[in-house]
């Protein structure tokens, strides 16, 4: 079955893009999608704080740029019997959620490519308003052909 669905959540927890890529999936209505996006955003924020390991005290930096530790990334993968949810959090806080088959390989590569398509066809589009729902034909077209390629190769 390959890749099931993609959801993009903006940094405020709003749903800006959702699309399914295969037949015969349970459908959600728009409201449920919005709730899902908001809930995931909250859960992600909580998981980012749940760090059992005590952070080492940052050594006093001698001049130059301060040595900042990588912030905790929060939830990255969630696996269930039927699907696998991979989350990619960009540096600006946009989250990409990819629902795939549990056996799907190279999800990281797929995610990277989707982020690349987003950076190209959404962020470089003068008619896209930041943090608003994504409505870009080119993004849609490129994403569909990319996912179809992956799904049909299995």
């Amino acid at each position, binding site marked *: 079955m390959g890749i099931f669905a993609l959801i993009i959540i903006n940094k405020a927890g709003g749903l800006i893009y959702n699309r399914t890529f295969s037949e015969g999936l349970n459908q959600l209505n728009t409201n449920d999608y919005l709730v899902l996006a908001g809930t995931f955003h909250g859960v992600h924020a909580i998981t980012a704080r749940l760090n059992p390991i005590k952070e080492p005290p940052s050594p006093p930096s001698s001049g130059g740029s301060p040595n900042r530790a990588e912030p905790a990334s929060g939830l990255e993968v969630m696996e269930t019997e039927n699907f696998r949810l991979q989350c990619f959090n960009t540096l600006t806080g946009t989250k990409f959620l990819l629902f795939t088959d549990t056996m799907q390989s190279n999800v990281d590569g797929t995610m990277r490519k989707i982020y690349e398509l987003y950076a*190209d*066809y959404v962020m*470089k*589009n*003068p*008619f896209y308003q930041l943090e608003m729902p994504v*409505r*870009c*034909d*080119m*993004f849609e*077209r490129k994403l569909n052909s990319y996912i179809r390629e992956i799904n049909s190769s299995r």
Partner: protein
Amino acid sequence: MSNLQTSKGSKEQAGLRYPSNGKTIYHRPLNRTRTSELSQASFAYLFSEMVGYASKRIESIQDLEKRLNTQGHPIGLKLLDLLLHREPTRSQLRPLNIIALLHLIKQQVWTSLFGRAADGLEKSSDPSKPDEYMIIDNEPLVNAYISVPKDMSQLSCAAYVAGIVEGVCDGSAFPARVTAHSVGKQQQGGEDGGAGGADGGKEMWPGRTVFLVKFAPEVMEREGFLGKG
């Protein structure tokens, strides 16, 4: 020359900023161009902002296209001079007839702007419009990442390139009006509405754009005289 010397002398001058080695764009030779390529991503972001700037307080889509056209026009004027300067001394002539001019645009102008020649050059097939020529680009670089929203469907951001072409035509004393029309999209829209006629060429190039060059009447008149002579 005097300008260059003063700029070297007083670096603390306000306004313009100079790189630490003191070499500004004016110090570079005009001829060496082979390696001066730019990042497409930076251009895409810059162009995106230019379109955003041009679409502030516009009344119609024609208005927006007009503004993009106006932004491109001075580039065309200057580019013509630069390209002719770069020609070997013997062939440093500005184009004298329409065909030579369009050929210059298709080859030199396109190559210097986009790294490849335009995909086609056609004369209008309508006999009542002998003054219209078409330059065809299958995938214009400026539109590479742009999806035009549905409510502005007749807009083509390649109007900026049309402005450049218009600048080149005006600069070589062939006043013309140049407009950009995306034909790939129209075809698709028509197919969606009507029967799904499969046109392979149009399907393959959804961003296919035609630059319609309409020369001023005096140009056609002069061309007529030249043809007789």
